[in-house]
């Protein structure tokens, strides 16, 4: 006997993601899902962004890592509340883990919640967590050929931050070619060029983000 099911495998995650969205909306919290491969500069960008928005927005951070609390300690050292989620081997955050972390935060006192996803250009793109904005980082050191290798991440993201632009003179990374490819995949994507090392472009990105949060 054949039984019709027609149920998406990601549906259960979607339901919790929508619940997260509802909770955050009720407390006026704007949540960013920050994704990239390992070493592209997620934690550095979080620290730079927190610094730029200090005194302007009340921020908190959720750190997703396979193991350890190196990143959340870096954030806490900067005086910002950081909750660490250890996924225990899993390569991405799911809505349920974020839901648990939300329960540990005083959402009334937060305007912007940045979720630093597990370093991975593949899986995090499949799992919505209830975010307002999906932001991804590609660093110059990784090369400009990544969009066609990891298409889902580039087509799902609302923002692409190209980090480590201070390395451009030492590489054959072609920013024009990258932008052209990405825009064909995702014409709505906003692109920022930054260097977390020198601070270049951080002002532009943080002002844009602040407008989104206050918007």
């Amino acid at each position, binding site marked *: *006997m*054949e*039984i*019709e*099911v*027609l*149920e*998406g*495998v*990601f*549906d*259960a*995650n979607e339901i919790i993601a929508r619940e997260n969205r509802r909770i955050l909306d009720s407390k006026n919290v704007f949540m960013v899902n920050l994704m990239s491969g390992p070493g592209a500069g997620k934690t550095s960008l979080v620290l730079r962004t927190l610094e730029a928005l200090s005194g302007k927005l009340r921020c908190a951070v959720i750190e997703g890592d396979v193991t350890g609390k190196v990143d959340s300690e870096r954030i806490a050292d900067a005086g910002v509340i950081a909750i660490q989620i250890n996924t225990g*081997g*899993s*390569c*991405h955050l*799911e809505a349920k883990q974020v839901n648990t972390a939300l329960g540990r935060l005083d959402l009334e006192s937060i305007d912007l919640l940045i979720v630093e996803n597990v370093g991975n250009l*593949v*899986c995090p*793109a*499949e799992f919505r967590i209830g975010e307002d904005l999906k932001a991804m980082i590609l660093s110059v050191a990784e090369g400009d050929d990544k*969009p*066609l290798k990891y*298409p*889902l991440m*580039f*087509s799902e993201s609302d923002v692409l931050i190209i980090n480590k632009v201070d390395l451009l003179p030492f590489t054959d990374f072609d920013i024009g070619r990258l932008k052209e490819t990405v*825009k*064909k*995949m*995702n*014409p709505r994507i906003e692109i920022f060029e930054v260097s977390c090392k020198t601070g270049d472009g951080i002002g532009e990105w943080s002002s844009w983000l602040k407008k989104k949060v206050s918007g």
Partner: protein
Amino acid sequence: MHELSVVESMIAIVLKHAQANGARKVKKINLVLGEMSTIMEEPVRFYFEIIGKDTIAEGAELAFERKPLIAMCSSCGCEFGVSNYDFTCPKCGALDTEIISGREFRVDSIEIE
């Protein structure tokens, strides 16, 4: 690695529908997998063998139907197959297009006894 949690969700869906229909055994699971999904067939089969063990779905055949990546142009309304992830409308050149298939991973139906 992310196929592990995905297969857990998949089996939960299968068992829910099998039990609701009084199944003793799940013989076959018909899955639909989009071209742009990050899910791979082989790891799904691998994890299914492990997680499906000792359930009524143990040993069920997994049948994958692949869906090509198709987008619809918001300007002229034409549907087109996307190649090389270039979402530009081939008819009118508009960039404002929407994916209508190719992203899914769905349990379409199950065969039970």
